[in-house]
């Protein structure tokens, strides 16, 4: 019997397709529309931190260097108040197979897929995760399909995503290059159903467990060299997995005083599903278009319950402009002698601004880098932006207007970023949760889950709910 492949029919089969392609029965963990047993879901993967590290070593993942950015730290101290200017460290995740921390996420999924006898794995992603899945699949002898959103309706490809597609094909993957639209998820479901491959979603417990080694390595490396725990770890934030996994790893290593700071590029005003806006942004991820919706509604993901729950672990959220990140990317090359891609440089930008406010003996860690090159390089992005009619100039970065103007700072002092209110995010999370399940029906279990999910206690929650 030929199955109905219309949009509505395939979306209606979502749960059964997910169950077959993930091998996880989420119903076992879900207790209500707003709550589930998160820790049990994570624990049932059966992996300890040591198991993950061992598995990752088999496929060229982990044990990446931690660099002290000495000249950048000096430059920050030169413009900081007396006694201020924390040491800036950089975890060089570009050293992983496939060139980004995403290899950590893909590694456990690939291991699971192989162990369970799947012939291949599939991921729908326009990011580094595609190359990571393709690379890990290659090493495990699995077939791989990557679905990516790369072209606008004129057939113009975002240069960074074009490069990521090239890398996936270089690792032997079949790459579906799609135009703009959320129907990427529909295509994912159809392809999963057709191939019976493993769903290497970014948001499964495997996808998050794989990152915990990153947090643990940071704790170990900082302690060994600086005889203290990292004071602040800055994480580029989009879907929430990077932040969740890193924070969990730090906690597991006992670094429970470390502040976890999220950072995203501010792309407010641009619509993520707009064909026109698609090629008028210079960052394809690590931006507010993903960061804010995923923080406030984590279960909007492509799995029944998202294992990436950023607000559960986030202490602060910093926003930076496109121009500020381009300035700091250039400074990294000129002062530190390394070229790296946009994802890590986003959190580096926030770290530079934060370091000025921290004491000299404190340590701030930028927890990832990614590879750069043709298409991904900031010169490639700025040149493309200009072709798409975006104004590019030097000046005050506060004059940045996403989709219209990129203003690259003139001096390091102008790199300040801005603060995203955490309480605003928490309230927005509560409103979304209330939409999913009326507050008057919330049980004590629901309340305890929701409070933990926004890193607050039940007393705070009760008071916030009264004002909702």
């Amino acid at each position, binding site marked *: 019997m030929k199955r109905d492949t*219309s*949009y509505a029919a395939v979306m209606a089969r979502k749960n059964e397709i997910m169950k077959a392609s993930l091998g996880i029965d989420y119903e076992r963990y879900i207790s209500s529309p707003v709550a589930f047993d998160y820790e049990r879901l994570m624990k049932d993967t059966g992996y300890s931190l040591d198991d993950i590290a061992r598995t990752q070593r088999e496929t060229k993942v982990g044990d990446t260097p931690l660099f002290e950015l000495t000249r950048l730290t000096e430059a920050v101290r030169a413009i900081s108040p007396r006694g201020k200017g924390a040491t800036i460290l950089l975890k060089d995740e570009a050293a992983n197979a496939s060139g980004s921390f995403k290899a950590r996420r893909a590694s456990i999924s690939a291991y699971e897929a192989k162990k369970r006898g799947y012939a*291949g794995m599939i991921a729908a992603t326009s990011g580094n995760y595609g190359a990571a899945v393709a690379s890990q699949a290659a090493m495990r002898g699995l*077939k*791989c*399909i990557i679905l990516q959103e790369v*072209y606008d*309706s004129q057939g113009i*490809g975002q*240069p960074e995503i*074009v*490069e990521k597609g*090239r890398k996936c*094909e270089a690792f*032997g*993957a*079949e*790459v*579906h*290059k*799609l*135009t*703009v*639209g*959320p*129907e990427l998820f*529909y*295509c994912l479901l159809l392809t999963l159903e057709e*191939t019976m491959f493993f769903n290497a979603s970014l948001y499964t417990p495997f996808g998050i467990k794989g990152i915990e080694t990153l947090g643990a390595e940071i704790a170990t490396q900082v302690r060994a060299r600086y005889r203290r725990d990292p004071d602040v770890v800055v994480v580029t934030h989009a879907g929430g997995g990077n932040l969740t996994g890193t924070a969990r790893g730090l906690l597991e290593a006992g670094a429970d005083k470390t502040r976890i700071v999220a950072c995203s590029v501010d792309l407010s005003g641009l*619509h993520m*599903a*707009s*064909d*026109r806006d698609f090629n008028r942004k210079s960052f394809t991820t690590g931006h507010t278009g993903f960061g804010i919706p995923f923080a406030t509604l984590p279960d909007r993901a492509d799995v029944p319950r998202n294992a990436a729950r950023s607000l559960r672990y986030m202490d602060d959220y910093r926003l930076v402009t496109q121009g500020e990140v*381009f*300035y700091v990317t*250039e*400074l990294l*090359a*000129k*002062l530190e002698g390394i070229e790296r891609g946009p994802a890590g440089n986003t959190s580096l930008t926030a770290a530079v601004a934060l370091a000025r406010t921290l004491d000299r003996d404190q340590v701030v860690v930028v927890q990832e880098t990614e590879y750069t090159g*043709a*298409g991904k*390089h*900031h*010169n*490639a*992005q*700025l*040149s*493309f932006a*200009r072709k798409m009619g975006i104004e*590019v*100039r*030097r000046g005050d970065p506060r004059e940045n207007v996403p989709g219209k103007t990129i203003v*690259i700072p003139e001096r390091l002092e102008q790199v300040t970023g801005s603060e995203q209110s955490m309480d605003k995010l928490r309230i927005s999370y509560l409103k979304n949760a209330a939409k999913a399940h009326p507050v008057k029906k919330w049980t004590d279990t629901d309340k305890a889950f929701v409070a933990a999910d926004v890193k607050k206690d039940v007393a705070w929650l009760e008071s916030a709910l009264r004002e909702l």
Partner: protein
Amino acid sequence: MSTVPTGTWVEVERVVLRPDQRAPTIPEDTARTPYVMRVSGWLLAPAALGQPARVRTLIGRELEGTLKTIAPSYTHSFGEVVPELLDIGTAGGKP
């Protein structure tokens, strides 16, 4: 139009959803356009540009579409020079 021989590395294109079949919640500018997919593979039978074609992909699957490009290649680059970046972090030099 000349026919492309079997075994040539090509790219095919396929309309996955027509504008009237697309997701209900997308912005108006996107909703006007079809949802299109491209994939590369080896041509399984001779075909002409713009005509239906069948390919075998890198992982051995067989997919159909319209023949779009012969020998698709990557031409993305570092772009044209962006003078605004050059003097960042340098000791000077710009007159």
